[in-house]
């Protein structure tokens, strides 16, 4: 059984159709890439899965059970955690407190110290999160997401704003996290290199519709995908 099933989801904002009958699944242990040009609906899909948005049509199921009756604060107790495109940390709180909040849905927060070692931030644990460089804040956000012991981790453009070397390390780190914490990872990313080197399967969105899916190699050769990214050639 797939861990996550997004089935025929449509989400409209006024006259704009942000997601138009989109379906995809994530199997346990997979790293699934979700790519597409700006405005394709990738972040909207994340917000639907984490219940910040309610879809107009369709269903989202996690471990076979619908998430639509779950409130946003209940999503994490089901085992889903996420990071944000623009880093949504608790500014003014220390790094350690940010990670402790991540464990809010669980009993106790004994794991916070271990996690800080894991993302290599233990020496900065008492620093206010907002004072750290952007790339470091992204690691804090990862640790916060891991603190809830998720089974599904949603990463929204983890490579955004990172340097070339940092992106390479990130790719290795994402795979290591998947193995160490037995995660299934859904990855929204603009950085093609990162997606192609880490994802097992890739789904391509364009203007709210899914236009292709397959392995990274298959998707890279798809005519429609090339058109969506480079503009139609006739």
């Amino acid at each position, binding site marked *: 059984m797939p861990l996550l099933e997004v089935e025929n989801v449509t989400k409209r904002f006024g006259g704009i159709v942000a997601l138009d009958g989109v379906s995809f699944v994530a199997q346990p242990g997979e790293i699934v890439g979700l790519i597409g040009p700006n405005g394709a609906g990738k972040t909207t899909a994340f917000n639907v899965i984490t219940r*910040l948005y309610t879809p107009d049509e369709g269903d989202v199921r996690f471990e076979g059970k619908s998430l639509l009756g779950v409130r946003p604060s209940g999503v994490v*107790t089901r085992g889903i955690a996420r990071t944000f495109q623009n880093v949504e940390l608790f500014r003014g709180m220390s790094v350690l407190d940010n990670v402790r909040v991540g464990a809010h849905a669980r009993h106790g927060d004994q794991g916070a110290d271990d996690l800080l070692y894991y993302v290599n931030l233990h020496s900065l644990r008492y620093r206010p999160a907002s004072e750290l460089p952007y790339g470091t804040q992204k690691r804090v956000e990862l640790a916060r997401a891991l603190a809830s012991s998720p089974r599904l981790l949603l990463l929204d453009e983890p490579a955004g704003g990172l340097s070339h070397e940092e992106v390479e390390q990130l790719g290795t780190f994402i795979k290591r996290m998947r193995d160490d914490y037995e995660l299934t990872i859904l990855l929204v990313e603009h950085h093609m290199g990162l997606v192609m080197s880490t994802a097992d399967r890739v789904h391509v969105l364009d203007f709210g519709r899914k236009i292709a899916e397959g392995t990274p190699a298959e998707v890279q050769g798809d005519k429609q995908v090339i058109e969506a990214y480079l503009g139609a050639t006739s």
Partner: protein
Amino acid sequence: MYIAAFTWTEFAQQITAGVRQGAVFAGLALALVIIYRSTRAINFAQGEMATFTTFVCWSLMNHGLSFWAAFPIVLVIAFVGGVTIERTIIRPVENGPVITIVIVTLGLALLLNGLMSVIWGGGNRPFNGPFSTRTIDVGGVPISVQDIGIVAVSFVLVGLLALFFRFTKLGLGLRAAALNRDSSELVGVRVGWMLAFGWGLAAVLGAVAGMMVAPILFLDPNMMQTILLYAFAAAVLGGLDSPVGAVVGGLLLGVAITLLGRYVGFIGDTLKLPTALLLILLVLLVKPNGLFGRVAVRRV
């Protein structure tokens, strides 16, 4: 300019009186800050909420309870009342513009003020506080037991709150909810209830401030109105989103106002409040985020 005759003993007494006043300002300012951080609006009903609970205390004492027996009951009533107000009156406008929330709190202030007049009558009445007004000798300076008591109660309360916010899971959740709602929801914090809990805490802080000043000011429905203005000045001075700032601001303001009133002849008692308001103006001009406030910067 007229300068009053100066003695060190009297100066020490004035400082003590200033700290006592400041402790009350600090408590109420902290209540304003807690609500401001989560609801993003000034709660203009904070004073009336405090006075209302003080009347409840007065009623309980009239029915034969001692002050210290009534005290915990009043705190529970204040907490439940604060939570109920947020859930019923504030919640429908919670995601609306700030000005809407502010107008609702102003309406709430008028409503509570009217209710108090209806239930308890408008005139003022003496309130028998828990502390004696006799003085004791502290290092050669006579200080009233009441002043020491008020400062002690306020400090214990602020200290307990600080521990609660710092070391409990609920406190951590409250801080998180005030800082980033979406992220809080997604790590499992019930943001709606956190906001309500914040209103409950603010109501408790207000109730304590009310019960502490009532013996000095006499109890009437408008008792806290002036103090709320001082508390607002203190909160602005400390930085509206800083709990530490509210406490420091309250103490500074209490001491400053008392000393200015005593030693600068033309201020006296009459110009204390305008002086505090002038202070708000100066702080907003020179340091808009207050002494401890964060400068809001956001990556877009």
